[in-house]
Each structure stands twice: as C-alpha cells, then as structure tokens.
C-alpha cells in the first residue's frame, strides 16, 4: 500500500496556490489601480507577499514530495 504524504506537503500546496492568486491580484492592481486604494498601496504588498508565499509553498512541496509509510 502506498504511503501518505506529510502535512507539510499540503501546507506547501495551499501556500503556493494562495501565493499565485494573491500575486496575480497584485499584478492586476498595477494594471488597473483601484479607485479607493488601501493605505501604503504604493508598496504593492500583494506582489511581494504573494511572491513570498508562492516561493515558501514551492519549497515546502519540493522538500516534502515523498510519501511516508
């Protein structure tokens, strides 16, 4: 019977998904800036925060890609 993946793999999957979605939303905001932007909009937090989550997620997935018995 094949083993199970660790929870860190799934945590990575979730982080990667959220990172990509948030990064995409941030890029969209640069192209189409909101009418009422939040404070510190000029820092473009969704881009670097989304990128950070995506990278972390990818690292988690890469390091925990195996199955355990």
């Amino acid at each position, binding site marked *: 019977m094949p083993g199970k993946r660790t929870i860190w793999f799934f945590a990575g999957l979730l982080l990667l998904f*959220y990172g990509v979605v948030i990064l995409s939303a941030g890029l969209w905001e640069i192209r189409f800036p909101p009418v009422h932007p939040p404070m510190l909009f000029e820092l473009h937090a969704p881009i670097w925060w989304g990128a950070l989550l995506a990278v972390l997620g990818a690292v988690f997935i890469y390091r925990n890609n195996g199955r355990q018995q």
Partner: protein
Amino acid sequence: MVPSSPFLRPSAAAMCAMPFSASAKPHLIYLSPVDAIIIVAYFAFVIFIGFYVRKSSKTVSDFFMAGREMTAWIAGLSFISANLGSLELMGWAGSAYQYGLLAVHAYWIGAIPAMLFLGIVMMPFYYISRTHSVPGYLHLRFGNSARAFSAVTFALMTTLMSGINMYSMALVMKVVLGWDLNLSIWLSSIVVAGYVALGGLRSAIYNEILQFVLIWAGALLIPILGMIEVGGWSNLRRQIETNLGRSDYMHMWSGLGHFNQNPMGVHWTGVVFGWGFVLAFGYFTTDFLVIQRALSARSLRAARMAPIIGAGFKMMVPAIVILPGLLALSVLPFHLLPEGAALATGGHSYNEVLPLMLVRYCGPGLIGLGVTALIAGFMAGMAGNVSAFSTVWTEDIYRAFINRGARDGHYVAMGRWCTVVGVLISVGTAYLVQHSASIMDYALQLFSFFMAPLFGTVLLGMLWKRATDAGGFWGLLAGTGTSIGLWVWVERAPSALRYVALSSDAKGMAENMYRALWAWIVCVVVTIVVSLLTTPRPTSQLAGLVFGETEMPAAEHAEWYERPLFWAASIFVIFIALNIIFW
C-alpha cells in the same frame, strides 16, 4: 458621529461616516471574487484533509490519539494552533486597544512559564502513565470519583467553549462580512464536524497545522505595514502617549504597583499568582484540549518538546495580535468603543480592531487571506474542543461507566457520533452565549470554575505521594464549589469584589484572577487536609504516576541542542529579557 477618514477603504469609511444606528450599520469588508476563491479553497482543503486521513483512523488509538506518531514539530504547532481560537485573535487584539501593552501578559506571563513547566515537569507523568486524557490520569492516580467529576466538568466546559468560539466567529462574520449569524454557525459546524468525525484527532491536528500556517500568512502583513506607516516602535510609542495623554499603556509591569495605576485595574500579585500561576498553569497543564496534542507525540522527547516548541511560537503571537491593537491606537482616526456602547451608537467595538486594520492595509486577495486566517483561528479552536470532548466522553464516561467491553470499532463509531453530537450541543451553546454580556468574561469564568482547582489536584497528584483518592476528589469538589460560590457572591453583591480581590480599587478582570487563586488555594488545602486524615495508597500502586515513584527512561541519545531542557531554558531567558525590555 465618527469622522470619515481618507485612510480607510470606502466600505469602512462609509460606515464611520454614517449616522449611528445599529440596524443601519453596513459591514466592514466587501469580498471580491479573488477573496471568495481564497475562502472557498480553504473550506474545500480542510474537508479534503478529513477524507485523506479517514482510512488511517480505524482504531481507538488512531482516532483518539492520532496513533501516537506525531513528530515534536507537528504536535507542538498543533498544540499552539488549538490554543489560537477566536478569543486569542479577536479578543486580545481588542484588549490591546483597551489596555495597551498589558494585554501581552496573556501571551507571556500568562502562558510561557506554564507551557515550559508542562514540558519539563508534568509531561513525563502524563506520557509514561500512557493515559489517553487528563481525566484518565486522575483515574489512575485518584480513582473513579475524581475521574468522573473531572470528565463531566470537562465535557461541559469544552462544549461551552466550543459554543463561544462558534458564536464569536459568527459575530465577526456578521460585522465584518455581513454574513447571517445562523449561516456562519451552521456552516462552520458542519465543516468542523465533518473533518473531525472523518479523521478524528489526526484530521484535527493536520488541519491545525494548515490553520497555523494560514494564521501567520494572513495576519503578519498587518503589523509589517503598520510599523512602516508609523515609522517604527519609538514613533508608535510616542504617538500613543501623545494621543492618550498617558504613558501607562506602553508598559507591562511599571504600572502594576497599585490597582489604579494601570488601565486594566489589576495588581501585580493578581497578574503573577492569579493569571500567571493559577489560570495559566491550570489551562496549559490540565486542559485536555491542548494536552491531547502533546500526548499524540511519537516519543517522550517529542511529547516534552511539543509545549516547548509551542511556547516559542506563543511568545511571537503578540506580533500579530497585540501589535495591531497598539497600531490602531496610533493610526485610527476615531475611537473604538466597548461592545455595548458600539451597539448603541453604531460605532466600532474593540473587537473589530483586527478587521479594521486589515481593511486599512489590504486589497483584494490579501483581504481574503486575512479573513481566511480569522476563520482558520476560529475553526482550530472549535475543532480542538470537539475532538477533546469526543475523547473524554467516549473513553472516560461511555467506556468507563456505560459500556466497558465493546470492540475497538464500536468506540471509534461512538467517537464519530459523539463529534457530531458535541458540535450540535456547541451550536445550542452558541445561541445561549448571545445573551452573555462579555464573551471574554464568560470564558475566564469557566477557566476559574474548572481549570484552577483541577490544576491543584493534578499538581499534588504528580508531586505528593501522600495525596489520597479521597483527598483528590474532595479537594477538586471544594475548589470548584469555592470558585462558583465566589462568582455567585459578586454577581449578587458587586461590592463583594473588594473582599475577593483584596482591594476596593479592583476591577472586573481582577475578579477572575483572584477567584481562580482562591479556588486553587481551597483545592490544595482541602486535598492536603483530607489526605492527611485518610489512608494513602501503597507506593507500589503509584509507579509511573508520582514524582519519586516514577522511573524516567534513560536519557535518549540526543545532542545537547536537541534536549527539551536546553530549549526550555533558552525560551525562558528570552521571556525574561522581553519582560525587562517592555517593563
């Protein structure tokens, strides 16, 4: 009328500018499709985890103890995640706005020493005795009477606490997102009941890991952006002192010399002995909700490391909970109000501080992540209570007193059904607590009723060989009775608070701390007196249960940097340093 602000997003700004009317109050956040995708993905993921681990949760050990195979990190993060419920996130952020830096005591003196004590001193007894629960330990040490009393009060407390979590979540979803109260309560109940009933403790623990990651991913951005806006800690401190015209909001200890020299109205003795000792030790060393996570560890070393790892992260939680509350004191252009005043005037309450800061800094996507972090916190707390309830009901009430000799599968089925029933009772409780004046008070009352005396009983049971079965039971009963009696006394005659808290300047928060302290003292005194008057067990029956009669396993071949004592000492040194820095 609260002035409208250019610093808020339109929804919040519009709300602030509205005439005060509770019924006309719009919600804080309007979700974009991106936010909706993030929230729906979270719900789908937690249910998927339940199905994924279902096949490996077939025996009693699998379902109730997660097979006792968790690593120290998983057990430790799960330990802290189960503790990061709604009160932790929303309640203490609001308390930081209300009381300033004093609210950090909830995370440092009110948690760290107790968690380290659990890991170093108490966990070996829980783990070596191979008990499945805290009432199970009382059964081994003090017999069936203490176990029955403790199991029933614990089952009562967990369902009440789970209801509090559920109601808090529904309330936040209503205020923040405009969701119907009933929809939130039933949706969260069905999801939690689903994944806990499917995979038992393993499913709850795995989801708690995801929830832990999400809470940090969703909440950490607020203090980062907030500190950039105010220009660092020194500026934040200066602005708060200027805005409030007083400096006691930014100190943890220097204002605790007298009840009326700090915004919380407490004395350092209440903080140290009532909060830091009895309430914190009572909660972290005897509340099975968190102990169960450590007991799922694969070895004694992992079980001891679990609360120590948890303590390390607990020490960092003020960054995502307390700091946003303090930042709000500096940057929000209006004042937040107590819940009652906010309802009456249509203003914002203290409890809304986290969503207000979220909406201030975050746009589509990040708002969804922030809201998911809040939902994850609520669900972690709720699932923790439900899985602990399921274990105690099945193992310490049903199996112990109702049906002893059934096969494994029967108890697992009972655990699954019990999860569903526990959630339904919690739903009932969620509707009941709507009539409670303060959710935080309600929770602290429950802790002082049940946890404070239980800590006295367990501590004497582990450290004093002479403690007898009768002493344990009557001490527990007397302590619980004292706590409830003191509460009734102050409810009927509020002026009695001066006797309970030993000062006429004491305020409400002091009552909980001193009530817990008295309950613990009465429990300990009665246990000692009754034990000295009754016959102790032969020492041969105390092996593995009491200090001096328990043979610790030979030290595992671990390097010095892998030993629990090294990490506990390191964390304790940082804890002392932080208290001095923010004195």
